[in-house]
């Protein structure tokens, strides 16, 4: 399931709902991405996430479909926020439920690595020196490359 929303989310409630009544789940791995107050050596006072409505949802669904082709997964949830955020705010939640931990850990990391390089989101941050668009990082590209067959 994919949700792109401005509103915050409650990871505990989301994880509880994801596994409710599914006794075949033996592992539930999750990741929460947060707004850091420091990026590239500058203090960040706010962050705005722009996206490409329509394509964003398709890209995220495709990333989850690819994860399901690679691992046996019981449930996958991906929530990504858009709009204006502040330091310490939650940005993204990925939760993966499977029978055993190996699939859940791997798929969770895979989904985040692919999201970072394939989903059409862009971060614009405000620092003391003014507003700037966040540059894509080579490390993110390399992290996604690891999963190439």
């Amino acid at each position: 399931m994919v949700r792109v929303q401005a509103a915050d989310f409650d990871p505990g409630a989301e994880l509880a709902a994801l596994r409710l009544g599914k006794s075949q789940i033996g592992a539930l791995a999750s990741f929460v991405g947060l707004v850091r107050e420091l990026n590239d050596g500058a203090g960040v006072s706010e962050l705005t996430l722009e996206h490409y409505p329509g394509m964003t949802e398709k890209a995220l669904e495709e990333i989850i479909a690819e994860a399901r082709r690679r691992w046996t997964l019981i449930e996958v949830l991906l929530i990504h926020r858009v709009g204006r955020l502040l330091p310490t705010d939650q940005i993204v939640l990925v939760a993966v439920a499977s029978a055993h931990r190996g699939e859940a850990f791997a798929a969770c990391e895979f989904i985040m690595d692919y999201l970072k390089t394939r989903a059409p989101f862009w971060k614009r941050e405000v620092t003391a020196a003014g507003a700037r668009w966040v540059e894509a990082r080579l490390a993110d590209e390399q992290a996604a490359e690891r999963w190439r067959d």
Partner: protein
Amino acid sequence: MVLKILYFASLRETLGQGSEQLDLPPGVTDVASLRCFLAARGDQWQALATVRNLRCAVNQEMVRFDSPIRAGDEVAFFPPVTGG
């Protein structure tokens, strides 16, 4: 051939607009020739030719610049993504 073209993030700011609808001449048949056509309009549009690591999507799927375009397509240009 009429197309809808979208621009996002820093590119949208540089170009001063987020979308446009254009009737293109016959020679514009793929993303690369569309990019050249748009950049040739001069002024801020030259950014489309010079910007590093430009990305493109046709009908909301990321594609390479040699991908064909057809009437009614939705083409988007944007910088590398930075979500998550």
